[in-house]
């Protein structure tokens, strides 16, 4: 998400709300390399082909629709629970159902947090020290007070509370339509370290702007594995009564024409054909993972595929990878109690299996998984659900995470607090930029390049939130 003008606090300009005007510059900088070049031409920097296992992966788990953080992480101490219960009314969880988190360092206001009772897996991970919680994080371009918000300060992120735009801001730092995400930016910074650079960024959830960088574009695959185009084995695939069609098919479907939409479509097809051959070869003969994943849980199936891809990292010569997985259904305007628990339970179960798989593969400390979502939600209830908010709580998981602890600033519980922009929509106290920069530093992005990944970091004092070793 670089390319956004660095914001000057005293200035009245908000940073590039239209989200335009940056790709052009980055194209100029990068010599306008189209991403397919990496796939079709010579592979860059083969010298780095990894015998040593210098490997790190970041896995973004996106909760589509805006996770209700208030019913994910719930205060269970008497004082704060009663504030919670009063504000949440009909959608409050029972106090005795919560799964306590045993942090060593106490939180202010006497806050003790527990998890939704569907989240046993994540409770265990937290209490065993592999998971941390980042409190009240959200899009911010600069430190912002409630007075700034109410006075409509110039530097507020635009289009708050809108799903698609807040998803985009979480993923790119700019509005929908912006072309670069910070997952892609991260991969750009370490691009040369991967032999099969086209697998630097992999999405299990279709096209994701999070994974789009200048050199990297996300490679899309399904949780069912790699799909081979029937007929792509030229002259060897039998179809329509002979080999004649497969003889021409690859040429036919992957030759660029002059139309830019056809070119873009062909670029995807080319990648699909080449990547399938590479991945199928690398995956062949790999045994099943011993770790069990719930086959009825879409997020678990996606993370299982990620684990399988991590296992073949050395065959592909990968040193740094960014993955994107997602689960939908979090827009709980309605039926919050009946839908949210099972849904966040799926996240918990999937993350627990995935962490176990990284242990099985011996890469637990090399893989960091983190959650993100459109926004948090209102604390007050709209009858049987909650509405769009802003700040939210998120989870970071992995052997390199300083777990069993809370990071960021705990917001005061209840309505009408200093962080309440209305109905308990939290004004974030920590920026997504700080979140991204902390992960980027661990990933190996040099200090001088952090601004590329997190352009607003310059406006915040705390550059590293401290949750990574």
């Amino acid at each position, binding site marked *: 998400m670089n390319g956004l003008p660095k914001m000057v606090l005293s200035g009245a300009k908000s940073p590039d709300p239209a989200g335009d005007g940056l790709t052009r510059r980055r194209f100029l900088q990068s010599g306008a390399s189209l991403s397919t070049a990496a796939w079709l031409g010579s592979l860059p920097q083969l010298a780095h082909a990894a015998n040593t296992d210098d490997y790190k992966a970041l896995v973004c788990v996106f909760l589509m629709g805006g996770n209700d953080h208030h019913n994910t992480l719930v205060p269970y101490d008497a004082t704060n629970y009663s504030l919670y219960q009063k504000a949440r009314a009909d959608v409050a969880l029972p106090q005795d159902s919560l799964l306590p988190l045993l942090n060593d360092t106490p939180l202010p206001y006497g806050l003790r947090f527990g998890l939704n009772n569907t989240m046993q897996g994540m409770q265990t991970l937290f209490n065993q020290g592999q998971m941390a919680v980042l409190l009240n994080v959200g899009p911010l371009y600069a430190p912002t007070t409630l007075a700034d918000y109410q006075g409509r300060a110039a530097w507020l992120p635009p289009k708050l509370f809108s799903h698609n735009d807040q998803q985009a801001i979480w993923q790119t730092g700019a509005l929908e339509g912006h072309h670069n995400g910070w997952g892609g930016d991260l991969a750009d910074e370490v691009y040369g370290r991967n032999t099969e650079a086209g697998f630097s960024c992999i999405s299990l959830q279709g096209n994701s702007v999070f994974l789009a960088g200048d050199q990297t574009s996300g490679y899309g695959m399904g949780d069912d594995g790699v799909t081979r185009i029937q007929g792509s084995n030229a002259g060897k695939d039998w179809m329509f009564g002979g080999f004649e069609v497969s003889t021409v098919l690859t040429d036919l479907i992957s030759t660029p024409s002059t139309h830019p*939409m056809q070119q873009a479509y062909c670029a995807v097809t080319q990648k699909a054909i080449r990547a399938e051959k590479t991945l199928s070869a690398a995956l062949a003969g790999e045994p099943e993972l011993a770790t069990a994943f719930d086959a009825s849980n879409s997020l678990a199936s996606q993370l299982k595929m990620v684990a399988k891809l991590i296992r073949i990292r050395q065959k592909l010569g990968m040193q740094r990878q960014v993955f994107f997985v997602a689960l939908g259904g979090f827009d709980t*305007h309605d039926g919050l109690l009946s839908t949210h628990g099972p849904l966040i339970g799926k996240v918990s179960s999937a993350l627990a299996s995935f962490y176990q798989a990284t242990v099985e593969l011996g890469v637990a400390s090399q893989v960091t998984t983190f959650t993100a979502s459109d926004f948090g939600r209102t604390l007050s209830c*709209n009858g049987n659900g909650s509405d769009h908010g802003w700040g939210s709580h998120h989870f970071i998981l992995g052997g390199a995470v300083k777990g069993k602890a809370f990071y960021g600033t705990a917001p005061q519980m209840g309505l009408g607090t200093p962080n309440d922009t209305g109905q308990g929509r939290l004004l974030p106290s920590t920026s997504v930029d700080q979140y991204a920069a902390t992960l980027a530093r661990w990933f190996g992005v040099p200090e001088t390049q952090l601004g590329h990944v997190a352009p607003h970091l310059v406006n915040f004092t705390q550059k590293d939130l401290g949750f990574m070793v």
Partner: protein
Amino acid sequence: MTEHLNEGMNPPISTHETSAVTDCPRHSPVRLAPPFLQQVGLWSLAGMALTACGGGGNAGPATSPTPSGPGTPTLPNTPTTPTTPDTPSPPSPPAPTRIEASRFLQQAAFGGNDADLSRVQQLGLSGWIDAQQALPVAVTGWDWLMQQGYNSSDYRFSDQPMNAMMWHETMAQPDVLRKRVAVALSELFVVSARQSIGEMTSFNMAHYWDLLNQYALGSFRDLLEKISTCPAMGYYLNSLGSRKDDPKTGRKPDENYARELLQLFTIGLVELNPDGTARLRNGQPIETYRNEDVMGLARVFTGYDLDDRVFDTPERPEVTRVPMALFPNRHSMLAKSFLGLTIPANTEGSASLKLALDHIFRHANIAPFVSRHLIQRLITSNPTPAYVGRMSAVFNDDGHGVRGNLGALIKAILLDPEARLVPDQQPAHYGKLREPMLRLTQWARTFGATSADGRFAAGGTYSSRWSIGQGFLQAPSVFGFFRPSYTPPNSLLAQNQQVAPELQLCDENTVSKYINFMRQLVPVGLRKHDDWPTVVIKPDYAQELALAGKPAELLARLNLLLCANQLSARTLSLMTTALTRMKSTGTDWQANRVHAAIFMVMVCPDYMVQR
């Protein structure tokens, strides 16, 4: 927005095209030289007069959102009557060629067969549109589900009857213009059966689809009111069951419908000029609303729930096709303030709804917002601001002082000079990627695919694991299948700040799945939803089979019908080579050649973009 080809950045093959466009006068004098978008004003000089409906031209600089007055008449609900105003006819153009007819049917319908092309030639484009607008809805989707016996508790939460209904609607009904526009509207006012839509999900969805059809060529204002009170929408965006503020518990009205009505359905997030470009203040876009506006509008949509006065059973699911009822004691009687309007306290529900929708309908953004959406769905992803501006003018006034006449708007969109640019005249990025579900429908329409038992009980296609990743009325969220501003990263399109929304559906997984799907589909047809080997929607390739021995003629026919002669010489040559080498003896050789030819055309990049 500046759009121009940047020669220095093009890959070699595009540089060639660019120089050809710039330097080579091989085309007719009306050819538009780049930068295309700055030159559209020359159209009138080139003798490409606007159609009668499209008159009004490019509106001047916008002012702040300007009401067109509360007295603006809206259309009566007469969906079976032509709603196009009888404007003076321009001098009648020459009959369209078969290529033009085919191209037109891909924009205005789902493609067509020989007879469909002939009909367009016979009536002319304008006459064909008029004839289509006069066609009644033969049978509503809801009634069809009843006729087929889906009114049973077996189907309570199933979307399968809806899939069958949509195959029947899009593949077998004669009012194709209405159907194509209704599909486009279903991608604006998204309700999706990816989640259950109440009890009797398919009937709820069918009624919603019927409303889109009923008003697709009628009044936008009436359509807004119908969808705002339709149970399917109530379920999807939670206005069903939303209640007034409760100061005791702190309960607030549900904001979901209010927010998406503004953001996605009508005015969008930033103020627009009539030509669809963003209005700027101090160089920055101006947001149309704040959360306070959403909270104010949310009060308007309180008090609605299923109409409990209606007798309703799975065998007779009437409640799915009557508007939600307003329960006055649950409706907010507080003042409702949004977008500069305050509906006074103690205004009852139905009056509040009318005032609110009238106010939204008067917003200056609606015309460019809706026009641009429909142009993108039917014609081209990157319309010029001038094209959007001409359509905004028609939306604002159809020539008879009527605002929001969708029939007039659709006719203007289809007959606009920019829609009618033939390939030689088009800028390099013109057109749109064909949506996977529309490719499938085109296959059915072109080859007369039918369901022998009339039930069209084929499976849905939304799964990107098992199918093509897109299905009618099954978007993944209220944001639809793709966003209007999507551009593939690291592409020439991104570089030129052009969009290709449909490409958001295309990743390595889905492009592969589509090809494999077509390989299965073309030889046999669409399979039954719950019985994989059984094929229920079968094509008729009789005319193609007659050409199996003449590959060049076979391909010429497919080239015309499927993509209005867009296949390049190179593509045709590759296909001809493959077909000519295929066997010309044995039992299935004709069928194999025909299947191979259709398959190759429908997966090749030249076909993929509707130009």
